[in-house]
């Protein structure tokens, strides 16, 4: 039989319940025939937590309240139910870190959590925790607790996914009960009720543990035992593919040289295809052999407010990706105009394409009004805008835009000839050919 504890005295006050838990844990692990090298003890901060130095298992001593989350990582990474992960945590740690308990139980992570419930924060001088029962006194609660404490067993029993929950009094020999909890796969929890002689007993002279538990209405019983349940298994994928989809590489089909970079800004409303239109422009530029960047701006909630995109195309390498003074500004909605107002005012030249329903602010840019919203509908206004401005400026080949648009699945449902008619531009047979994917 292997030892789990060193021979040194345990680091607790005389009579502290924590002593019994340590001794019973050793005994329980011996009952189950564990090797200490197959056990990882994760301890919280609190008096109970400094026990790690006495254990001959692997030990991980973390932060106040976080031991269950820390053990979650250990357990999920080991991914081996033959390695026993045990958590020692106090009522204090379980108070500050309750989320982690619920979460570990919910997921059924493989571990046994042993809550050392002495109804107070022992390490910091006996302040009450959320587990302090009604009427229970501490040095900081001379008149006793004003409310009932958490019933952690009830709480955790209510969580779907838990394998085993029990409460016991931490007196005499409870190694069999602990061993039962340790033997369960998935998530098991044992709440051990104890008294801290230094603060609990002092503040409640003559009080007996069983009386405290009883008057708190806490049942000493097994709340859940699902018996032989499945262990938690971490998904470890092996069939991983590179994020680089080289088959999506863009070929230069319409070689174009630009004397200087073109900086374009599209401003409209969320849900009106601004980002998609900008991506068409970007891709058309790259298909023309140019370098390109596209940056999106929008409020946090998708689907409302403005949506803006900046596209830069250049024969040279693009460094700075902003467009404080764009060559082309396209505004399709009032939201977009609000967002773009300052930039438009700053424009020293270039072109402003703006929907006819809007009024262009003072600017040095050439202002071109067109009823994009009326002709294309709100949803297609951005798409109409990019075709229109490319047609009128010829900045990059229209063929490139037709090509990348034709490759996209939305092209199938889209009436291009009608759009060109509405844009007052002829749509030719030749243009239609360009939308057919070029091999």
């Amino acid at each position, binding site marked *: 039989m292997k030892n789990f504890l060193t021979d040194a005295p345990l680091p607790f006050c005389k009579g502290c319940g924590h002593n019994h838990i340590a001794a019973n844990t050793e005994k329980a692990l011996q009952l189950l025939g564990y090797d200490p*090298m*197959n056990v*990882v003890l994760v301890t919280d901060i609190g008096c109970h937590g*400094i026990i790690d*130095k006495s254990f001959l298992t*692997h*030990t*991980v*001593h*973390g*932060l106040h309240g*976080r031991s269950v*989350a*820390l*053990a*979650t*990582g*250990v*357990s*999920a*990474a*080991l991914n*081996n139910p033959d390695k026993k992960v045990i958590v020692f945590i106090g009522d204090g740690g379980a108070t500050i870190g309750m989320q*982690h308990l619920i*979460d570990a139980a919910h997921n059924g992570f493989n571990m046994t959590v042993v809550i050392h419930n002495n109804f107070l924060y022992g390490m910091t001088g006996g302040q009450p925790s959320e587990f302090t029962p009604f009427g229970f006194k501490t040095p900081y609660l001379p008149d006793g607790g004003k409310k009932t404490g958490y019933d952690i067993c009830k709480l955790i029993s209510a969580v779907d996914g838990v394998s085993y929950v029990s409460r016991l009094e931490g007196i005499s020999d409870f190694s069999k009960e602990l061993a039962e909890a340790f033997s369960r796969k998935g998530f098991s929890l044992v709440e051990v009720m104890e008294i801290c002689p230094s603060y609990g007993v002092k503040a409640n002279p003559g009080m007996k543990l069983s009386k405290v538990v009883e008057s708190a209405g806490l049942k000493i019983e097994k709340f859940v035992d699902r018996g032989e349940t499945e262990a938690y298994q*971490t*998904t470890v*994928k*092996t069939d*991983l*593919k*590179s*994020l*680089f*989809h*080289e088959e*999506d*590489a*863009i*070929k*230069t089909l319409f070689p174009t040289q630009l004397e200087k970079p073109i900086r374009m800004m599209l401003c409209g409303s969320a849900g009106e295809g601004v980002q998609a239109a900008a*991506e068409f422009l*970007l891709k058309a*530029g*790259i298909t023309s052999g140019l*370098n*390109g*960047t*596209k*940056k*999106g*701006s*929008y409020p*946090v909630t998708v689907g409302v407010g403005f949506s803006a995109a900046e596209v830069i195309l250049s024969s040279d*390498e693009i*460094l*700075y*990706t*902003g467009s*404080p003074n764009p060559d082309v500004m396209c505004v399709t909605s009032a939201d977009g105009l609000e967002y773009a107002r300052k930039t438009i005012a700053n424009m020293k030249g270039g072109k402003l394409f703006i929907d006819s329903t809007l009024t262009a602010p003072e600017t040095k840019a050439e202002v071109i009004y067109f009823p994009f919203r009326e002709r294309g509908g709100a949803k297609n206004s951005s798409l109409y805008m990019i075709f229109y401005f490319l047609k009128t400026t010829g900045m990059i080949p229209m063929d490139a835009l037709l090509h990348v648009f034709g490759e996209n699945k939305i092209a199938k449902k889209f009436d291009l000839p009608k759009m060109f008619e509405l844009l007052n531009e002829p749509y030719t047979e030749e243009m239609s050919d360009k939308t057919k994917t070029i091999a």
Partner: protein
Amino acid sequence: METAEKEMRLIMDGSELIVESVARAGADVFIGYPITPANLLYSYSQERLPSFFAAPDEISTLQWMCGYATTGKFPVTASSFPGFALMLESINMAYMMELPMLIILVQRLGPATGTATCGAQGDLGLLQGAISGGFPLPVVSISSMKDCWEMPAKAMKMAIDLRTPVVLLTSKEEIMTLSSFSVKNLPEINKIERTFYNSTETYMPYKTGATLVPEFLPVANTEHQVRFTASTHDQKGIIQNTSKEAIDNTKRLEYKHRQNKTEHLFYDYDEQSGADTLVVSYGITSAACREAVNAVRADGHKVSMLIVKTMLPVPPVYFEIMDKYKKVVIAEENLTGQFKNILFGERGNKNVSGVNGIAEMITPARIAEAILSK
């Protein structure tokens, strides 16, 4: 760019490169909680890394990562200030336990929730003081799409070599902007092979030799007992009050990071002979800086440029470089010049000025103006 290379361009964002980089370098798991502008890192990681966990919050995220790291696996996460703030105590724990991991911090406009969809470079000051006691937390940043590919793997190597959490500092526009980018001819990234303690002698988890880095051994191995602790501890990993051995161990955490190893030193120094002015930048502002320098030089002026990537602890070589110039301009997207303050203190230095601002990227024009101003 070669024609053949141009033929093979993809439309990519920096997040994709970062995740592919950590995947190839051998990251085992991404654990995270969603936050703009780090969400692309979250979603690409879900697809690309062997394991992925959606944690219920950022404290759990860091704790789960620490647990993962104790077993010898390499965890990665990504967040922005609000999430990073919640991680802070746990990052200190990882630092004290000496657990390698990568935390990608995508800066956005603060304070507090600020503007989630607006980039910023406002968190360097926080990182400088992130570890209680003022111990240096290694921070590396990226300055280009190419860096999105190279720096994450290098940061991981640094984390493993030094047994420490490393922060990869970036910001919204750097990792969300789409660009034409050729993945052909990128320097190869190989899986980082980790070595663990292998001796029959009793393992002392925090005993070190000349490297000042203790040899790692995963928890739950069957040969030796392993202890990790966040409390002040001796070489055995046993909690101590302030024993000499334990305090020496704590001091070692400082010295370990101050070795300024060349293999962890990353910067681009573009020196122009005869230049009196040096412009310094990092992160998102680097691109504007490069553009400004090109423009200024095209007009016949002389200027040198230093783009720093190893940010913290500050490598002494940066001071050696800056000392060669009569005038130093430091450009960064925050109000007060956080990197400048880290280098020169609140009082500053008469030869050093900043180009600063918030809520929009610093423009090349402003940097050029500062370079040329008398």
